[in-house]
């Protein structure tokens, strides 16, 4: 068998970090605040497309160069340009990266915020789910057909991670992995802190009984919009990291299955539990990557059996088993009380 274990482990860690970020954002939205966000594919893709645009249109400008249209006839010169910039001007690359993150977060957040208000009109709750799923597909089809964004169905290559200017490729991948995990960890800390605060108390009340919460003076619509802003911003950041990780932006990476994957992560790991979200993200990432590797290895060994198909069946079966026998997930929701309780114990 021909596997570079170290590289695989680093890759796994990176994918885990991105998955964790997505899982924590969904856990905040649904597990804590009770908003069923079926729009991961949409928000993640917005982040990725933002990266596609900034790396081809903004970065050359930051480097004092002309912007070259990245598709069609000028595809190769544009690709060469950005590859060169990233190799020789790491400062520009990093600056572009930072700006991309901010823009993606803002765009994702605003779209999430807007959708939250739009869907106040929707009658049954799960219609919101459908709107988001469908919205993601609409964006995907438009981006796939309208060239100027990411060269339609061809996609954009050469969207490299911010450390790739290092001579030591392994070091570059380690640094990127650590950074991604850092982002995930920051999201985790934020979410944990939020839950124990008065705002967390507010979210749980809204989740449990929206009508009573409103009668106690809480502006439920605004709270939901706030959470959607934050969650969508996180998802968009995950999208940027995702695109940079594979170095390629293609509309077909952001399909409905992505949304399902993230839901599986939090359902498996445990709703309302941030650690559970991490566990779920880890499980799904490992399952996904390991079975992919096994499938490739089996194919290389000449096996006729399409293991790929079995992967999905396995996925579905595991999810059904969890829903049936342990619907609360691996780690059930902790009885997190707000900090007020710690203060009251003393007095």
């Amino acid at each position: 068998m021909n596997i570079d274990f170290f590289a695989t482990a680093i890759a796994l860690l990176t994918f885990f970090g991105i998955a964790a970020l997505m899982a924590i954002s969904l856990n905040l939205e649904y597990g804590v605040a009770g908003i069923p966000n079926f729009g991961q594919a949409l928000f993640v893709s917005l982040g990725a497309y933002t990266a596609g645009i900034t790396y081809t249109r903004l970065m050359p400008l930051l480097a004092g160069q002309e912007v070259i249209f990245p598709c069609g006839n000028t595809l190769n010169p544009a690709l060469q340009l950005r590859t060169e910039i990233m190799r020789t001007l790491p400062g520009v690359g990093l600056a572009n990266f930072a700006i991309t993150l901010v823009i993606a977060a803002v765009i994702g957040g605003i779209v999430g915020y807007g959708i939250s208000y739009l869907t106040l009109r929707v009658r049954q709750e799960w219609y919101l789910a459908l709107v988001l799923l469908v919205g993601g597909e609409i964006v995907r089809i438009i981006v796939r057909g309208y060239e100027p964004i990411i060269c339609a169905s061809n996609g954009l290559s050469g969207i490299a991670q911010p450390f790739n200017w290092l001579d030591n490729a392994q070091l570059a991948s380690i640094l990127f992995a650590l950074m991604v995990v850092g982002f995930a960890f920051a999201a985790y800390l934020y979410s944990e802190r939020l839950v124990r605060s008065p705002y967390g108390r507010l979210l749980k009340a809204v989740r449990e009984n929206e009508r009573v919460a409103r009668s106690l003076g809480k502006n439920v619509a605004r709270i939901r919009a706030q959470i959607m802003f934050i969650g969508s911003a996180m998802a968009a950041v995950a999208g940027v990291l995702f695109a940079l990780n594979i170095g390629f932006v293609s509309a077909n990476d952001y399909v409905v299955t992505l949304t399902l994957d993230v839901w599986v992560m939090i359902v498996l790991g445990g709703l309302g539990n941030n650690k559970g979200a991490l566990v779920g993200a880890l499980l799904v990432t490992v399952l996904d990557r390991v079975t992919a590797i096994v499938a490739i290895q089996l194919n290389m060994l000449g096996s006729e059996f399409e293991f790929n198909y079995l992967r999905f069946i396995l996925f579905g079966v595991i999810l059904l088993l969890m829903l049936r026998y342990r619907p609360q997930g691996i780690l059930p929701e902790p009885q997190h009380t707000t900090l007020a309780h710690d203060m009251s114990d003393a007095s």
Partner: protein
Amino acid sequence: MPGPLLVDSLVRSLQVGSLYALMALGITLTMSVIRLPNFAHAEYITVGAYTALVVSLAVSSNPVVILGLSALAAALVALICHFAVFRPLEKRNPSTYTMLLASFSVGLILRYILFLLVDRFDLFDRRIAVPLEIWYRSNSIILTNVFFWVVPTTLGLVLALSALLNYTPLGREMRALANNFELARVIGIRVERVKSLTWILVGLLAGVSGALWGIYSSVNPLMGWLAILSVFAAAIMGGMSSFVGTILGAYLVSFSENTVMQLLNYYLGLDFSFKPAVPFIIIILVLLLRPQGFTEFFNRARGLQR
């Protein structure tokens, strides 16, 4: 726009609309009687199509036999899913999202089992073996026997379904369940029995529509999954409860996808690759502007009412 092109797209809209109607009625039934947004419905359709393929290759090319066996196969699959997955879950009073995720998972499993079987028996890129004949030809249109299978069958099934709902005891029980679940149980309607029979009905509809869809276009394991959002669009137009609304919605969706798309392409140069976006845009518009669909207009009509 040239006449033949327009007529051709209208014929296509009619055929596809009929198929969408059959598929969407299954969804509407599921939503109103069983209260489940079932994304695995897509796979019941695909099962119907592949049964049609296998039957046509190995057993007979008689369309009645093909349709019948496809209907039965899909009904069987629907029943199995009910007893194996949905019923045990329903007993635990799950949230709508649990059921949504469950139905997605069931769909996923069925889809890839089909992939495995298709791969194993080398059924990729095969067409259902039915004789293709031209039954009507004029200056502007050509109608094949397929057209005359699809549209009248749809009509017939819709009428049969309507008759069943309005004039049989089972139909009454189904409507009672759709109108008021708790009350129905109290009156003594055997809820489990009605549910099982409803699933059979849903499966039959899906099977027939899958077989016809396969005859009309082609067969691949993703065909149900690819069509399902158009189908949901149609069902949403009917507010998930009105039959007439669903059927009209189906034709509207099909018309938008085909004729309107054709017009947009011819006059505005809009590329056909945007065609899948049409049902999605319809869904969003309906949900945001008129979430109850068109049920109000058909409140007094036949069908299940809320």
